[in-house]
């Protein structure tokens, strides 16, 4: 499914913020009848929006054990009681991680402080590991989910510091050093980064080199802007499209049903 699928383009730039745009674009990446393990924030909003639009049968899971809740509002923790509120199952962390390891989970989302052109992510530290200049939380479940789920997505701000040619620490595997590297490392075949959605563009991965390739630019964004905000050389899709902005119904659902208190969309 193409992100920039043909639709009637309406200029709504004044009507949505960057976070709303990213969430809508991410939601459209999630195929119907699939499973996704999400965290808090934008990924959860994207999954909730997808359920109400293009993927009504998307099954949401949380790494702490929740399966298929009727989410009453956005969770603040991937283990809070919303994550299994009227859920189909309140399991355990092994339960969810093992479902991922068995191949039952299609999508997951990552966050992180740095990302490189192969989609490898750092969420551990800046500086030397033993004496870090900045300590971040660490992998959490990110390394697990990105190792085991079929498709890994990211919703992240894009700038030169964050999109770097050299990670201080490779917390979570993207395509590692390129073609064959995940398989050689022992990671399950057929897995890996799928889409990175930023405030500027939708970025995929070139099937041959497994390097980041821009698939579509958001309305009003130029190639130069994207390059200026990236610390490595990007590839560009042959048919570079324009990202389809949120339509009014997506925005209505996102604002009224998914995140009425603007916990996530208020952050933009």
């Amino acid at each position, binding site marked *: 499914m193409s992100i920039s699928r043909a639709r009637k383009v309406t200029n709504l730039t004044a009507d949505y913020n960057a976070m709303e745009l990213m969430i809508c674009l991410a939601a459209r990446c999630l195929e119907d009848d699939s499973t996704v393990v999400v965290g*808090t*924030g934008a990924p959860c909003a994207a999954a909730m929006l997808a359920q109400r639009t293009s993927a009504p049968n998307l099954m949401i899971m949380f*790494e*702490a*054990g*929740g399966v298929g809740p009727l989410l*009453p*509002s956005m*969770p*603040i*923790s*991937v*283990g*809070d*009681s*919303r994550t*299994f*509120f009227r859920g189909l199952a*309140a*399991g*355990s*962390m*092994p*339960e969810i*991680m093992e479902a991922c*390891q068995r191949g039952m989970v299609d999508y997951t989302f990552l966050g992180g402080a740095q990302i490189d052109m192969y989609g*490898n992510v750092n969420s*551990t530290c800046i500086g030397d*590991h*033993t*004496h*870090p200049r*900045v*300590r*971040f*939380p*660490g*992998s*959490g*479940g*990110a*390394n*697990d989910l990105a*190792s085991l789920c079929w498709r890994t997505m990211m919703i992240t701000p894009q700038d030169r510091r964050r999109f770097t040619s050299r990670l201080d*620490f*490779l*917390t*979570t*595997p993207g395509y590692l*050093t390129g073609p*064959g*590297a*995940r*398989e*050689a*490392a*022992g*990671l*399950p075949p057929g897995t890996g980064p799928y889409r990175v959605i930023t405030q500027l563009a939708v970025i995929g991965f070139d099937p041959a080199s497994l390097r980041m390739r821009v698939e579509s630019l958001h309305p009003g964004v130029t190639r130069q802007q994207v390059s200026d905000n990236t610390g490595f050389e990007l590839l560009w899709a042959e048919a570079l499209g324009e990202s389809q902005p949120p339509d009014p119904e997506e925005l209505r659902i996102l604002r009224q049903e998914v995140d009425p*208190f603007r916990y996530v969309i208020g952050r933009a």
Partner: protein
Amino acid sequence: MPQSFHPEERSGVGPLFTSPDADQARLFFRQKPRRLTNKLTTARDAVARLVGDGDYLGVGGFGSNRIPTALLHEVVRQGRRQLGLAGHTATHDCQILIAGDCVDRCDVAYVVGLEARGLSRNARRAFEEGRVQVTEWTNAALAWRYRAAAMGVPFLPARIMLGTDTARYSAAREIRCPFTGIRLVALPALFPDVALIHVHRADVYGNCQIEGIMVSDHDLARAARRVIVSTERIIPNEDIRREPTRTAIPYYCVDAVVEIPYGAYPGNMPYEYFSDEEHLQEWLEAEEDPALFAAFVREHIREPADFAAYLERCGGLNRLQELRRLEHFPGKEGDESDR
């Protein structure tokens, strides 16, 4: 067989803070009491008897959900030092122990953050200044390390961490599957000295029922040498026996049982009370200034005589009643929070 990415099988360079020796663990478990005895006691007594300086702790729940806050406060209050910690999505639990300067080594999967709430400045300082020695892992790695210990084997294989610095700075080792030849990570069993776990219901012997997600507590309770359980309420043994299917932790894993209503506050206790997000924000704000934060910890943990006194300082029964209402997720959460 996959082509070789790594020139040879690799080992992580991180220190292993606990021994994965299953035979040594067996000798401990051999002498662990099997008798049904009344284990009801106070948090003070349980921590005094069962948590020693230098011990390695595993904490139940999920960072800010169903955490044994009252027991953690008691560890701080009694001034335990040089503890090891399993940082298995350790959020508010880690924040408390770091606030008490209790921890000097940590198996990190997730620390210093409070998920969507932000980062703990005080915990970051402790890690950045090297006051806490670190070995890197992941949430699943720590979950499966507990499971290995609960199973009584010295390691379990998994398909995570491979090819990353997380593995390099861990204490995991790479192995090959003896059947398929695929590369796997071997995760060493994690037998904590002590587990602190908060549950919904327990009898005086330590048979426990838990509602909602188990996280890793099923395995943690079995992996740990000693287990302190705090419980929202004590129930008669007959209630355990009426529904033995619901026993998540059997008594023979448990060394002490402490009845502490609201014992997970300010965390979320499923079906009981929601997290106190305002109070958790107070923590994060207080941490911005070390001097202010020392006063905050003194006021909230060190000075209160017990957990009930802490609850009083945080708004007492009225606030707790609000959190009970919030937990039931009225149609629009704002209906409650705007009141």
